[in-house]
Each structure stands twice: as C-alpha cells, then as structure tokens.
C-alpha cells in the first residue's frame, strides 16, 4: 500500500518552495526596471497556491515513508518542478511553446544546460535569473533542500535522500539526515557566494557573476550570454570558473572536511585522486594537441584545454572554445570525457568517477580471478574492501547507462539525425552536460529537434540526474506488485 496522502503532502510542500524561489526573481526585475515582475508574481502565486492546497489538505497524513514512496516522490517531484518551472517562460512569452519551455526547465533543474534558445541576450534579467536559479536548486537537489528545512521527515527522509542522492555509498556528515542536508546546503551556499565575489572582482557585473556562480556550482552550464564564457575574454574569470567547477565536481563530503582543515581526508581519498589525475592527463593531451595544431601560445593552449576538460568532466558544459573546430581526434577525447562525470556526492552528473574506477578495477581483477579460480579477490577502494553487492550495483548501473544510450541513439537517428548528432545529443542529455556533437554541438542548440525528440531528451536528462535507478525502478513490474 502506497502512502498516497503523504506523497501528495510532500510534493505540495516542494511546490511551495519552488514558488518562493520564483519570487526571488521579482527584486531582480524591479532593480532593472523591467515590467515582467507580474510574471513571477503570477507564476509563483499559482505554484504556491496549488502546492499549498495539496499540502494543507493532507497535513494529517501518516508520516511513514518507505523506499517505494521515496522513489515516487523524487521522480514526481522533479517532474512537477519542471512542469511548474515552465510558468515564467510561458507567461512572459519568452518561450511560447510548452515543449520548448519544458525542455529548457528540465535542462535547468537537471543541471544539463542544453538550451533551445537562439538569442539568450534578448531575454529579460528576471527570466535569465530564473533560468540560473533552476540550475542552482537542481544542483544540490530540492529534496536535500527540503530535508534541511523540513523537520517532519525522520526515517522517511532517509528514503528520499537515497532516492535523490543515489551515489555508490552514502556519507552522512551528521547523525541526522536533516543535519547532513543542512550542512550540504551550507557548503553549497558558501562556495556560491565566494565565487560571486571573486567573479565580481574579476570584472563581471554583479548580475552575471550571480547567475554564473549559480550555474557553476550546480555544474549546470547555463550562461547569460549566447557565447557562454567565451564572451568574457578574460583568463582571470576563466581560471576562477575552472577552480569552482573542480570544487563542484568534488564530493561535498570532502569539501566539508577541507573546510574543517582535515586535508588528510581529502588527500587520501582515492576517488579525488583519480578525479584530479584524469583532469591532469586529459588536459595535458588536449593541451598538447591544441598547441601543435593551432596557433596558440602555451598558456592559451593549456587554459583552453583545462577549461574544456574540466567543464566536460564535471558535466558543467560551459564553453570557451568550440571543440568541434579542433582537429577531430581532440573532439573524440572530449566525447570520451563525457562518460566520466564528477565525483560521487558532487553536483556533477555522468557515470561518476568512482563507478568508472570501480569498473576498471573489477575488470582487471577478473583476469586474476580467471587464473586463480578459488582465490578470494575483492575490490578495494579507499583502502577498504568493497562488498560484491556494490560492484554488482556499479556494473548494473553502467550496463543500463550504455544500453539506454544505444537505444536512445537509435531513436534519435530515426528522427533524421546523423550518428554524431544522435550520439552526442543522447550522451550529453543523460550525462547532464549540455553541449553535444554535430548539429547539437557547442555552436548550435536543441531548437531544431522535433517535439517528440525534445520530450524524450528531457526524460533522459531526468533519468541521468536521478542516476537511472530511481526512475527506472518505477518501470519495473516488481515495483507495483502488491
């Protein structure tokens, strides 16, 4: 028996939060003297009203939640958030088509950053701000946010947390889930504010600094400019964004330890070492390739390479240089990077470094197991033996990930796209990255995709953001069996 009333109750509460976030755009419209503050008043009002009513009439619901409710709440929560998040775009008329607005909002909340907009600069400040906010909320997750401010969820909160922040293992920063969620959001806010200040010092105006900090820390990639970060031809700004992208792609538990000066924990973390290692190696290869093939000085080659490697591996998707204009082998490297993703427990998407490393380790050990059939050869990670259950889970995740990509790619090519475009669009959406290949490369956008394709890609983004299992489990017959 599903606890439907409690599900409605929590979803209602989530919508109220979303409505309040919409109101945040009102001061922005007022500061810039734009007339569309009523857009946000109406959108926020509708959202809060509907959420509030659902919440109010189910407030006496039984508070017990189990795993199944957790999965349903999180999946429906993300759907509803995107659904209501379209209101400002539609009411203001900046994105009149509902399909486009939904794609744009889902791409925002899932921190993908793929856009259908042809002319970003033409939008009002309020709308641009809302667009960045969707990414900022989606980065750490609205469930995590509501757990931090909602007192009622004890055990049930755990189920929600697991469904929204699936990861490979769970690290709690505090004995209570509420304490953990609050600390995560606090770190998130601290980093965001620091980045705002630094970008402002580096010469961005306050509005752009805020928007870009929101989308950097979320590893989202929405920019307020059509040319993305390339608009500011400033190495200083690029380096700041690189640093914060790396931070956002790091496990927030490690950031928590770093902020408490326990650097040994960070240094000894195996995933973090691999993460930095991958960035280093790929930057070197691509930087060298750029230096040899284009007319660049070493610093420029290094910076462009580092920026693009970090932007793709953390699944942010900011662009300083169109990687499709490089020699093609470098573009293939970028494509390869799209499968890595950030660290587990970060705001980054993709497969996640930890899974990639575990996959490689386990496969390598399999060779050893073949030679010594009776030997006990477990996988070690962070100097600890890993349960075979975790290895199986990782293998299942990666299988699903690849299967979904292949099948979706077939679907996209049925819509008339070539291999580059189909594969690029699918990989970038499920990995929550943003720019793809071919006709959806950094220089283009997703506007030309037919409606059905947009809906499907939106679905892929959600599947990717919730790390596949949370959504897919709803399609399993076992889930609905009594």
């Amino acid at each position, binding site marked *: 028996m599903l606890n439907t009333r409690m599900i409605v109750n929590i979803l209602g509460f989530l919508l109220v939060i979303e409505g309040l976030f919409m109101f945040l755009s009102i001061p922005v419209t007022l500061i810039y003297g734009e007339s569309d503050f009523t857009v946000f008043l109406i959108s926020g009002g509708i959202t809060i009203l509907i959420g509030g009513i659902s919440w109010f009439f189910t407030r006496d619901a039984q508070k017990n939640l189990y795993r199944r409710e957790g999965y349903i709440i999180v999946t429906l929560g993300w759907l509803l958030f995107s659904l209501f998040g379209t209101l400002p775009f539609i009411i203001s008329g900046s994105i009149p088509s509902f399909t486009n607005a939904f794609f744009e909002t889902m791409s925002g909340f899932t921190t993908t950053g793929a856009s259908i907009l042809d002319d970003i600069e033409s939008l009002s400040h309020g709308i641009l701000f809302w667009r960045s906010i969707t990414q900022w909320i989606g980065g750490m997750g609205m469930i995590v946010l509501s757990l931090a401010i909602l007192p009622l969820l*004890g*055990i049930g*909160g755990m189920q929600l947390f*697991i469904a929204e922040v699936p990861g490979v293992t769970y690290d*709690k920063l505090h*004995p209570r889930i509420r304490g953990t969620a609050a600390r995560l959001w606090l770190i998130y806010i601290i980093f965001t504010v620091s980045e705002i200040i630094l970008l402002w010092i580096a010469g961005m105006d306050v509005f752009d600094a805020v928007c870009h900090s929101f989308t950097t820390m979320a590893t989202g990639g929405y920019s307020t400019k059509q040319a993305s970060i390339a608009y500011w031809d400033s190495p200083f700004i690029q380096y700041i964004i690189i640093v914060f992208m790396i931070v956002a792609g790091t496990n927030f538990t490690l950031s928590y330890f770093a902020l408490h000066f326990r650097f040994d924990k960070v240094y000894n973390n195996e995933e973090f070492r691999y993460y930095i290692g991958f960035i280093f190696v790929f930057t070197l290869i691509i930087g060298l390739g750029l230096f040899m093939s284009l007319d660049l000085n070493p610093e420029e080659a290094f910076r462009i390479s580092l920026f693009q490697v970090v932007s793709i591996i953390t699944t942010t998707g900011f662009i300083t240089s169109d990687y499709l204009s490089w020699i093609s082998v470098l573009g293939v490297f970028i494509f390869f990077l799209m499968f890595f993703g950030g660290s587990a427990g970060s705001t980054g998407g993709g497969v996640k470094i930890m899974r990639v490393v575990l996959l490689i380790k386990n496969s390598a050990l399999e060779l050893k197991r073949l030679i010594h059939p009776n030997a006990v050869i477990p996988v070690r990670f962070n100097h600890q033996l890993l349960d075979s259950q975790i290895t199986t889970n990782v293998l299942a995740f990666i299988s699903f990930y690849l299967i979904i990509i292949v099948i979706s790619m077939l679907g996209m090519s049925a819509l008339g796209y070539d291999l580059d475009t189909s594969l690029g669009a699918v990989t970038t959406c499920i990995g929550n990255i943003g720019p793809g290949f071919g006709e959806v490369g950094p220089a283009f956008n997703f506007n030309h995709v037919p409606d059905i394709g947009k809906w499907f890609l939106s679905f892929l983004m959600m599947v990717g953001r919730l790390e596949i299992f949370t959504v897919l489990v709803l399609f399993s017959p076992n889930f609905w069996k009594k």
Partner: protein
Amino acid sequence: MNIIIAGAGAVGSHLAKMLSSENHDITVIENDRDRLRNVGSAFDILSLEGNASSIGILKEAKIKKADIFIAVTQSESVNVASAILAKELGAAKTIARIDNQEYLFPANREMFQKKGIDYMIYPEMIAAKEIVGLLSHAGMSDVVDFSGGRLHLYAFRLDEKAPIINKTLIEISDPDDVLEYRAVAITRKEKTIIPRGNDKFLEGDMVYVITNKGGVNNLLRYTGKENIEVRNIMVMGGSRIGVRTAQDLGDQHYVKLIEIDREKSYRISNHLDNALVINGDGTNVDLLNQEGLSKMDAFIAVTGNSETNILSCLLARKMGVKKTIAEVENMDYISLSENIGIDTIINKKLIAAGRIFRFTMSSEVAIIKCLTGTEAEVMEFVAKQDSPITKSSLRDMDFPKDAIIGGVVRGNSSFIANGDTMIKPNDRVVVFSLPGSVGSVGKFFN
C-alpha cells in the same frame, strides 16, 4: 543529545530506532557490515563500521562530544572495555551490558564505577525478576510497580466474560467513589489509543490501568478475571533467564525446568537445588504430559527460539495451563502471539532498552518501562521545583495529547490523577506516553 551506541544487535538497533525517533543524534558502531547496513538504512542515524573497543573508531565517532555511550555488543568484554575507554576519552555517561551477575554486587559495581562504567545492565536478570513478579498477579498480562508499590500499572486483555465490555469510561466510573484506578491506554488491533470519557471497551482490547494499592481487587471484578494461585510451574529452556527464574521461584513454588541439552541440564541441576531439572525436548508432547503439564498453573517458555516458545505456550494453553509466559525476541511476533492467547510476552530488548532509555531523559525519571504489545512507554517522573507541571491544574495545562498522567505519589500516599489535580514539587508522577511524545512530556517535569 549525542548518543553513541556500540553494537547493532537486537538491543542496539531497538535503542537506535527509539532514540532517533525522539530526536537524538545517534551514532552506531558495529563491525558486522550487514547489521550495520540494516540499521543505517532503516533509521536516521550515522553508522560507523569498526570495533567499538578501538580508540580510533571511538574518536571518529566523536566520543568527546558524546553525552551517553551505550555498549550493547554481543561480547561482554568488548562492552566493558569500550565503556571504560569511552569514559576515558570524554563520554559524559557510559552504560555497558553485561551477563555476569557478579559484577552487579555493590562492591564490584563501585569498582566498575571508578573505572568509568556508570551503569551496568543485565537484561536476563531483569527479565527473570519480571517473570517472578508477574506470577503473583497471574490474571494480568503485565505489571509495573511504581514508587515501591504505591502505584501499579496493570495490563490485561478483555475476554468475553469481562463485565465492562461495550461500556464507556464514563459509564463504569462511579461519581461518588474516590478514584482508585484509571484506564490510561487501550491497545486495539495493534494501535494504542489514550481513551477519553466516551471511548468504549471492546472484547480483545489490551487495557492498561493505573491503580493505587486499594484498587487491585476492584479491578479484578471489572475484568472478570480471578486471581489464580500459582503453585506448580514449568519452565522450558535452561537459558540464563530460565535458570534465574527457577532459582527465584524455587523456594515458594514447585518448579520443573526442562532443558534439551544433556550436558547443560547436568550443569544446571548442579547449582539449582530447589527445582527439578528434566533433560528432554520441550516440544515433545509425551514428555510434557508425563511431567504433568496439565496440572501446571503456569508455563514459562524461555528457550532462545521465539517460535518454539510461542508454540509450546499455545500447547500448554490447550492442555489447560492458566498462565503462559513466552520469551519472544522477534518484535514482529509480539502482538501476534498476544492475540493468539499467550498471556504475557517477555522481550529482553524492550527490557534493556527501557532501562537505558531513562538516561537519555533530561528530566528526572525514576522508572521507564517499554511495554510489550504496544509501542508506548510508561514512566515515573519526579516533578522538579518550579517545573511547568506544578504551575496549574492538569485540566488547564497544554499537556501532549498522546500522553496521560495516571497517578501521583506524594510522600507516603498515592492517588489517581484527574483534571483538578495539582502536581506539587517532588511528587512522583506516573505518565503513560505514546512514542514521539516522551521528549515533550519530559519538558513538563524539568
């Protein structure tokens, strides 16, 4: 409150569940990965893999900031060692579970206290004591004494003979009478409610009543139960609980103890001289009949196996034994086995948890007891000077709805509370509370 629990066995995980629902910050240390995963994913706690007697692990659990350290692993020596270490490393209070009665002798207890263990708990011994106490009120399912017997909580099941069935609380109360008892809770179909004046008693209800000394006999009249004189007792299972129970009962009763293991039964008979030890399978009906099961007044099944205990109690019941007590460690079986006719369930976890729970209350609690068959708890508080509870009459107070004040002990006298009652400082107050309200009840006495 920061609480560290070492050991996620039966007692540990029950404590983790109870305390985390009372808004405490719980860290559980356990070296068995599967157990740890079970508690970690079910309750809102921080789980830590490792050995509780390792200094590194204790430090990682932030032992310095711990208000209470509770060691309830399977191993007594780990419990003792880790509690001593915990105290040394900065835990404010330490509790260790033991299974050695020797440690509880006053002189030894003092020695352990000096070493850093504030409280030692021996669940098997407490369980045996409870069984002995229950046998003197054989009509009741559960008995808790407060303030040295000035107030009692009785739990009994209403069968079809009970005269109060289908009557409301108001109907059975006599307006001229001085109140001698008060029904504080009814458990019906696994849900516990706090009855108000218009609630009816139904057949099959488990009713919890607080009475003062004089009220017991009247209570029996209402329940339709008679007080059974218990003479012949059969104890099944030579577990620690079984042996202790037989030892305590042996002088005044005729006790037979059945133990399946031959070696063990010899060992038991060696130091159990006031009971007859029988070596045999307690589930063997022929053996039980031979030993006169049908002539027994009480049957106590305390083997380590819950299923065996339940089934053999049912068998005893069928043979006409009036009082059956089963040790049931599987929490899910408790209400089930009460519903199919076993009079009383003994559960070591709840016993231990109740004793330990007391230490997590900020107010002064003399007794706290987790009842079997309901999730509720009954507690005896001492009202402090100037505490909120002493400020107005109970009627005018914003007391939690999920809790009820049953009775009050003032000096040497005791009485049952009603709306006009004013609590005075230093009164001992018996409160019945549903889970989740225990914390807010405690605030009234602080």
